[in-house]
């Protein structure tokens, strides 16, 4: 029994670093995080999401409901200005406070 456990432990110790090496973290892509405290419901968020997707430089918009944040990924070689992000919120008629966290 002990021998089995030792073998399994050795296998785990060998495999874990191997898996870590073969699954490197993805290269960091430029993102903007917008804090939307107390975001109340779907239409506020989906409206902003829609307006953000309309920007040329936006690659993806992820709604992080639990964190009350919206994460905006930017396409390689393109950029999005803070003004464009603010304009997207305004165009979506987002009625609450928000804050761009990592300009």
């Amino acid at each position: 029994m002990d021998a089995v456990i030792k073998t399994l432990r050795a296998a785990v110790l060998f495999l874990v670093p191997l898996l870590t090496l073969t699954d490197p973290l993805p290269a960091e892509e430029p993102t903007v995080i917008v804090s939307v405290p107390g975001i109340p419901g779907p239409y506020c968020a989906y409206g902003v999401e829609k307006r953000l997707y309309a920007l040329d430089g936006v690659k993806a918009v992820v709604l992080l409901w639990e964190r009350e944040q919206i994460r905006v990924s930017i396409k390689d070689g393109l950029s999005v200005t803070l003004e464009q992000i603010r304009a997207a919120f305004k165009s979506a008629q987002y009625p609450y406070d928000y804050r761009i966290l990592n300009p």
Partner: protein
Amino acid sequence: MRKALLSIMALIVVSGAVTYGLVLSTPKREICSALEPWGMGAAAGAHLNRPMGLAWADGFLYVADTENGAIKKFADDGTVAARWTGFKRPVAVAVAGDTLYVADFLSDRITRLRSDGTLISQWGRSGNGNGAFDAPSGIAVDRRGNVYVADFYNHRIQKFSSDGQFLLQWGGKGRWNGQFRFPTEIAINDQGEILVADAYNHRIQRFSAQGEYLAQWGGIGFGMAGKWPGWFRLAKALNVDPRGDVYVADAFNRRIQKFTGTGDLLGQLGSRGTGDRRLRYPAGVAAGRKGRVYVSDFFANRIWQVECGPSRNAARTDPAGAVSTQS
């Protein structure tokens, strides 16, 4: 001077009494069973990610599984009978016979497909002209197959033939009769009248099939929100049951209110319960068979069911069997 003051005071007292009589003293009557979880989400493919619009037809519940980009069809026992994927933000679904209509909020498109998944047609583009959308948010189909779409950012309703030909539109932004502030959902009653959840005017408006304004209810008009019985704080979704009663998802008040077809309050449901057994954000409602009502809870990622007892007019033909007009 003294007389004038007395008259003003009397007026205030009288209007206060009338307000109390009409509004505040209305009983908060729970008229159905407590919320029961439905379709527990454990079955393969049953997990929901921000469910919104619901439709019930022929014994199946259709759910707009918004952040999974899918429409799911559930059997009565909560198992997944079918699913359709590839949407961006499907927020509403309507079913007419063998045909599904899906409103996609992000892509400004209506998709029409057969229940076996075959695409029949798509229509819509971004914009504010006839046939264009800026975030379609609700959809319903009448007995003739005409399709009505709530056009969220354009503050209007558009009517199409079943194959997507533009027929007419009405609305515009505002608080007056026939205007909207972000309409989110549509239902059609037995008389073919169109009921619209005028979400940010916190009211329900009723129209003829040609878009003529007929009536409204909720608050005291003019976009007044409230927590009192018969008022709304964001009238998010609605549904008409086979007997013509109207269920309204009152999102920020975390309840469903039930009305007669002309807007008389019958009571509320879903407001009981605490913690996990409390509605968090009712985003869709659908009346099923035998008084059962389904509610999608956006933030809880689940569907609830409540039993609302036998029909008040059970002898009437169930229109949902022929054409489901709910989303």
